[in-house]
Every structure is written in C-alpha cells, then in structure tokens.
C-alpha cells in the first residue's frame, strides 16, 4: 500500500485568511489521516505477524521457528518516510503487548521482547537507509548485500542477545545459547524472505500488474502453482525414513532458479517465503525430509537449508536484474545518439539550404542583372561564373539532401521513398521497382524519418553487398499497420543476419523500438534477401 505525501498549501493572497485557515485545516487533516492510516496498517500487520509467529512456535518452546513481525516492521521502516517512524513505533507497541499477553507471555518478557524486536527493525532499517538510497535497495548488488549484512544478519544477531537475555532473566525459559541460536535463525530467515517481498511488492506490484503481458502473468501463475505443489510434495508428504533420498529436498531449486532468472528478486522472495512457510509448518507437524527425533534439530536444519539456499539465489536474481538494467540503459544511450545525430544532420541540412543555398541564388540573380552585351568576352566570363555558381548550388543541395531529405518534411514519406528509388536507379545498374501506396496519409515525423532511414540503409546494403540486378521497394498500409519491404534478387546469405548488415541492422532495430515496430530479414543463399518492417500506426 502506498500513501502519497501531503501537499503543502500555497499561500493565498492576504485578506483571504479564512480561506487560508480552511486550507490549513484540510492539510492538517490529510497529514493526520496519513499518520493514522500508516499506524493502523503497520500495527495490524505486526499483530497478524505475531499471531502467525506464535502459531509457528512448537508446543512448550519459547522461540518461534519463523518470526514475521520484526521483518514486517523493518520493511515498513524502509518504505515509510523518516518522519513517520515515531508513529509506526508507537502504533506497534499496543499491538505487540496485546498479542503477546493474549498468548500467555508474562508482561515483563513481553516488554523485553518489544525492545529486542523493535530494536532489530530500527537497527536494520537505519543502517540500510544510511548506506543505500531507499528507492533502489533491492535492484542492485550493493543494496542487496547491505541489506543482507545489516538488515538480515547483523541486526538479528545483536538483538538476539537482548531477547535471549529477556527470556532467561524473566524466568520464561532456560538455556541461553540455545535460545539465542533459535531466535537468531528464525529472525534471519524471516528478514531474508519477508522484507524484499514486502518492499518490492509495495512499490512495484501495481505497475507490474498493469504493464506486463498476459503471457508473463500466466508464467508467474504457473510458477506459483509449481512452487506450492513441489513444496507440499517435498516437505508435506514425504515421511522421514532412511529410504527417502535426502537430496530430494533440493527439488524446489529449479523452480527457484526459474523465479530468479525470469522474475528477479520480486519473484524469488515470495517463492522463498512460500517454501519457508510450508516447510516449517510441516516440520512442526513432524513431516518432512529431516530425520532427527528432535524437533528443534529438524527445524534448525531446515532454517539453515533455507538460508543457505536463499542467499546465493537472491544475489543471482539481483545480478540478473542489474544486467537487464544495463542492457536497457545501453539501448537508451543508442537511442539518444541516433536522435542527436538526426538533429545535427537536420540542422546542417537546413543551414546548407537556407543560408548557403539562398545566398547563392541571390548572387546568381545579381549576376543575371549585369547589363552585358552578348558575344563579348565579358559575357562569356559571366556565363561561366553563373555555371559555376549553379554547380555549387547543386552540390550544396545534394549535400543537404543526403543529410536530411526535405521531401520527407514537405511531401511525405511516399515522395521521399520514390526519390530514393529514382536516385538508386539513376546511379547504379540496378533496376528499381517502387510500389508506394498513395493512400498512406501523413505520418508522424519520427515514424517517417525512421522508415526513410531504413529504406536508405536497406538500399545501400543491396547496392554494396547483394550483387543483385533487381530490387523491389514496397510501402503499404494495412489495417493500422505500415508494412515496408525491400526485396532483392541478389546472392542472399546464410547464417546470422547481423554479420552482413552489421551496424545497420542494429541501428534499424533501435530506431524501431520506441515506435513498437518490428524488423525481419529473410535470406537464403542464392535466393535473394528480403527486409520486412512492420510498424503500427494509430488510426486518425
């Protein structure tokens, strides 16, 4: 659940103090509401977590096998703004005492445990927030490692001393180091699996749900069902006996790998949570793959197993996420480069046309006005000069056109493509057939430019590499989709298309990506090459 930050009221003009007071009250109400809402939600979650923790405490034992509330509070302290921390800590106190006392814990023990529990959450959250920016704790290696070291290991480690001491000194239990160990592991495990789940799902789940493709959501659902089924199978139905191969306990591992690689930490953590819960619940009922007669030992083995599996997988998931981000930012950079290049080309083309081109014409016109008698040497000179100026004009125009085709802006994509075909037909021995659909209306500027550059690149490839004698360029519009094809009868090629097209193909793909277009290159040795591009166009 996300709560927005309150807006501060803008000061209205003096003389409307009543208005000001009303707005101030509204803002205060909003702020108060925000605090109350946060407090209630976290307190309720903490209470529920405590009840769950007690449910996971074996009969007669003092320490739970998995202790959620500290992790819940730590997650809340990571997500909430600093100024709300005191609200949360205050709200959690009654929830804690209520849940503990109702479970039969003496008041003194409960108070001591409050210090330990809250201490763990505050210590962990404070360290993490000091060292890492809260907006990206779990999407990079550094953040995840900081969380693991301080939030999941150091904080429970330190506060376990407090909690174990509380139990022994209030006479609620005995065996300091045994208490210390079991409390440590139950908290470390809870922190590892609960905190990333809560933090990531609070910030990303709504966006992910909205933006992901249905196939991806289906994949997530299948994974979830798989995790549930396998955990129940491995931990719930297999009875501990010497005949059962203990390695079967690793059966969930492929599914966890799937979760890490395909869904990152946001998919791995809930999976780990489910497995932890199911395995521990069953272990307490005497089921599961661990064969020791002591429940404590079985649970400890399970906790150690889960922790040692969780940590490397979490790091793997984070590395994958970082890699995806790097790929994405590389693509972003190449997009920006392409954009900057086009801007620069356009600027130069425009200046060539406007400044140099126009001025040359003016010079030409000026020369035309010289009163010269025909057939004199002077007339010959002037004619010569006029010819030279015309040549310069022409070169400047060609240069400008090569950088950025003005037809594209003034006459549309169809005219510009026809012009390209004419140029190729004129300058090379290729026979060019140009089929441009006249019903294509005016297209958005970036789309036109993108398709133009692709035709340019494709034709260049045909001229340079294919050895073809004929090329057909076709541009059509079919039900909201623009289809561009450049097909030649040249040598074709086998193997990776990128080898031949080289940077050209990558550039084309990158240009098409923001336009949600696709490009395919179909080629067989000896039967020519076809470049096919499809881009959606919003119907006007």
């Amino acid at each position, binding site marked *: 659940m996300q709560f927005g930050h309150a807006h501060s009221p803008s000061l209205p003009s003096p003389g409307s103090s009543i208005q000001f007071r009303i707005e101030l009250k509204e803002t205060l109400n909003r702020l108060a509401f925000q605090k109350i809402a946060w407090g209630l939600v976290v307190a309720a979650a903490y209470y529920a977590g405590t009840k769950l923790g007690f449910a996971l405490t074996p009969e007669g034992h003092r320490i739970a096998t998995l202790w959620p509330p500290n992790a819940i509070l730590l997650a809340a302290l990571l997500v909430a703004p600093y100024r709300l921390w005191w609200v949360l800590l205050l709200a959690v106190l009654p929830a804690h005492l209520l849940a503990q006392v109702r479970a039969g814990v003496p008041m003194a023990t409960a108070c001591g445990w409050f210090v330990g529990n809250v201490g763990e959450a505050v210590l962990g959250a404070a360290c993490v927030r000091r060292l890492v920016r809260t907006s990206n704790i779990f999407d990079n290696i550094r953040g995840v490692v900081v969380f693991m070291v301080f939030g999941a290991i150091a904080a429970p480690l330190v506060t376990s001393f407090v909690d174990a001491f509380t139990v022994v000194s209030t006479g609620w239990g005995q065996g300091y180091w045994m208490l210390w160990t079991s409390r440590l592991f139950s908290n470390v495990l809870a922190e590892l699996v609960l905190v990333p789940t809560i933090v990531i799902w609070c910030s990303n789940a709504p966006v992910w749900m909205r933006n992901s493709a249905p196939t991806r959501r289906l994949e997530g659902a299948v994974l979830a069902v798989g995790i549930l089924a396998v955990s129940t199978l491995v931990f719930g139905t297999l009875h501990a006996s010497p005949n059962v191969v203990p390695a079967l306990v690793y059966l969930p591992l492929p599914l966890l790998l799937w979760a890490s690689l395909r869904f990152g930490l946001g998919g791995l953590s809930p999976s780990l949570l489910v497995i932890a819960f199911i395995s521990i619940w069953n272990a307490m009922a005497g089921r599961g793959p661990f064969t020791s007669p002591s429940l404590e030992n079985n649970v400890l083995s399970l906790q150690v197993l889960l922790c040692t599996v969780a940590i490397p997988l979490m790091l793997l998931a984070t590395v994958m996420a970082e890699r995806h981000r790097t790929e994405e930012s590389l693509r972003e950079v190449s997009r920006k480069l392409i954009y900057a290049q086009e801007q620069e080309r356009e600027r130069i083309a425009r200046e060539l046309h*406007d400044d140099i081109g*126009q*001025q040359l014409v*003016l010079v030409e016109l000026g020369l035309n006005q010289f009163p010269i008698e025909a057939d004199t040497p002077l007339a010959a000179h002037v004619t010569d000069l006029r010819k030279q100026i*015309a040549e310069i004009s022409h070169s400047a125009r060609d240069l400008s056109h090569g950088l950025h085709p003005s037809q594209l802006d*003034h006459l549309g994509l169809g*005219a510009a493509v026809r012009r390209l075909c004419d140029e190729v037909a*004129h300058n090379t021995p290729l026979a060019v057939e140009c089929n441009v659909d006249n019903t294509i209306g005016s297209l958005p500027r970036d789309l036109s430019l993108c398709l133009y550059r692709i035709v340019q690149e494709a034709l260049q490839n045909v001229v340079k590499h294919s050895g073809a004698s004929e090329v057909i360029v076709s541009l059509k519009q079919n039900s909201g989709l623009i289809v561009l094809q450049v097909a030649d009868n040249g040598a074709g090629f086998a193997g990776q298309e990128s080898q031949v097209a080289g940077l050209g193909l990558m550039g084309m793909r990158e240009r098409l990506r923001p336009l949600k277009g696709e490009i395919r290159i179909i080629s067989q040795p000896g039967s020519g090459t076809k470049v096919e591009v499809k881009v959606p166009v919003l119907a006007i």
Partner: protein
Amino acid sequence: MTTEQGVVLADDHRAMLTEVRTLLQTRFNVLAAVENGLLAVEAVAKFKPELAVLDVAMPQMSGITAAHEIRRLGLPTKIVFLTIQADPEYIQAAQDLGAGYVSKSRMHSDLLLAIDETLAGRAFVSPLLMEPLR
C-alpha cells in the same frame, strides 16, 4: 489607375522576400510579405488576393502544406511556387495543386511569365537549369 491585382508573398529568407517584392510591386499590389506558411494562409484568408507566391521550405508550415490549406479553405487564390528545390516530386506536387513552379535562380526571367500563365489558368514550370551533374 487600373486596379492592380493583389498578391501575397511568403519566403523565410528576408533578402529573398525583398527581391521578390521589388520585382513584383511594379505590376502588382503586394498585400502582405510573410515569413512562414502559417502566416501565408492567414494573409490569404484575410486579404483574398488573386495570387500567392510561396516559397516551399519554410518553418512552421511548408509552402506545399500552406497551398493545400488554401485549397481546403476554398479560396480561389492562384498559387505560384518560387523555390530552390528542383526535384521532380516537388514539381509533381505543384502540378497536382494546379500551381505554377518557378526556380529561384530563374526568377527574373520566369516569374512574371509564370504568374501570367497561372492567372490565365495554364500550368507553368520553370525549365530546370541544367541536368544533375553526376
């Protein structure tokens, strides 16, 4: 005094605009001289001249688009394009619009002739100066 026919000029290059104006104002009444296609459409809609002489490459709105817009508004103004562009696609576009097409470097020799022809309802295209040097 004979009533001169009104003309609206459009060119984004100021020196060129002055040059055209100087050429035409002896025979025509220059009602407006603007620097982009958008202003050209506005001026034509406002003054309703017999003729508009438009550059093609202009900011905000090109001459071609402005001509389409003028036609769309149903104005009877005749149009002559005066431009550096010499490509066949432009000439085709001009002919599709029923407009004349004059190359700027042949302005002095061709423009007045083009205007006369266009006002008389005949198409005129400036003979291209020379074949592309390749």
